[in-house]
């Protein structure tokens, strides 16, 4: 498929996007009558949606202004690239070592395939695709140095941590939890938030599929951190629960993290 078939936003219109087919005026008139009945929208829930938009904007603005304790405003930082690569290298080494331990007798080409997790987001460069035939003996070293692979590994690590955190948050009852546990959750949340923001600020943040997930994760993490050190507030809890539910956050994270890698990534 050539780029000519794509819109400037990447939508695919096929090979003959500009070819006009013969019309049938009778059918066109008929279908134009029917079309408004397709997915006919109900009344716009203006007030509800505005309340939710305002809450999200306030949270984002407060986080950007540094008004939430422990949340550093997100800004472009020159050290982000080396920091993400360094973190990803550590994770990559951990995942590789885990894979080597779990498949001790596998030939080197299979190990190269096994050590490359396959998150469902983002395009994977051909050289990173695990095929036993094509993987040369030097593949592991080459893959560790491949920046796109490093970002994917860093993303897997962060999303694995986020999954654990959100699961812990969901299992806990904020209304009854003790202050020490709440504080611990906040500290953990800040760590995951930092990693999330590093990713957002890195080329991984340009991934069209990963970006919305990281954006949503950032929002929920900021909300969790905000309530973790504050007086207990049921409405805040409800806001977070709603954000997690409406955005399918946990299922999306789980589907983005390849099975079996979460444990390795967190080691």
């Amino acid at each position, binding site marked *: 498929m050539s780029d000519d078939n794509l819109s400037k936003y990447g939508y695919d*219109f096929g090979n003959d996007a500009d070819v006009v087919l013969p019309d049938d005026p009778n059918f066109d008139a008929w279908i134009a009558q029917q079309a408004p009945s397709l997915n006919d929208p109900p009344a716009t*829930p203006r007030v509800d949606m505005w309340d939710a938009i305002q809450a999200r904007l306030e949270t984002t603005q407060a986080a950007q202004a540094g008004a939430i304790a422990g949340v550093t405003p997100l800004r472009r930082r020159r050290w982000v690239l080396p920091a993400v690569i360094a973190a990803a290298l550590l994770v990559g080494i951990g995942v590789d070592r885990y894979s080597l331990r779990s498949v001790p007798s596998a030939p080197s080409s299979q190990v190269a395939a096994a050590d490359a997790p396959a998150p469902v987001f983002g395009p994977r460069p051909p050289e990173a695709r695990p095929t036993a035939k094509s993987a040369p003996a030097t593949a592991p070293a080459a893959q560790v140095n491949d920046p796109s692979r490093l970002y994917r590994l860093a993303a897997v690590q962060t999303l694995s941590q986020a999954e654990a955190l959100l699961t812990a948050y969901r299992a806990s009852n904020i209304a009854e939890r003790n202050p020490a546990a709440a504080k611990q959750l906040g500290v953990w949340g800040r760590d995951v938030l930092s990693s999330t923001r590093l990713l957002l600020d890195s080329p991984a943040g340009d991934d069209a599929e990963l970006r919305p997930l990281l954006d949503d994760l950032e929002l929920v993490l900021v909300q969790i951190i905000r309530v973790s050190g504050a007086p207990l507030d049921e409405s805040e809890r409800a806001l977070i629960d709603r954000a997690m539910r409406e955005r399918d956050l946990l299922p999306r994270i789980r589907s983005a993290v390849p099975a079996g890698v979460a444990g390795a990534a967190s080691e």
Partner: protein
Amino acid sequence: METEQAVTPERALRLADQRTLVERARRGDPIAQRTLYEEHVDRIYRLTFRLTGREHLARELTQDTFVRAFAGIEGFRGDAAFGTWLHTIAVSVSLNEIKRRKREEARAAPLEEALTMSHSTPVSDPILREKLAAAVAALPEGCRTVFMMHDAEGFTHEEIAEALGVTPGTSKAQLSRGRAKLRLALAEFAGEWNP
């Protein structure tokens, strides 16, 4: 595309008002944000609903559209109407969500199944209604988006082109292709439009 339309005095006034509102929203004025929201929310909600067919998704995607617009309003250059910019964001978030849901069909029903026809349609035959909804759902993404925006929601080809990042010619061609595919899919009911 509003910038290509004739500039009447009323329209010039509206555009000036809009520029002022956008400038105020850029400075974080909540009243300006609310005014822009009230002015555009209906069309954005209707568009996201047309494309996804699910109320909770349309609500979520409409919220996403406005949050992204207000958070990124610094990036709005003002060379198109604010509404056009919102449509671009709304189409983008909707199509991304549709793609994501399709990938998760094992977990959730595909969105095509959510395409429904209301009973207000002039078509009385329930089988035809069902087949029409299925035929529209089966259209390729580009065709379906253009068809829904043009025929269901009344967008012009210029507005569609701007929102999708294509030329108006491509929008027209996609509409004609979409209609041709529907005509073929519904051939057995040709008596409906050829009485």
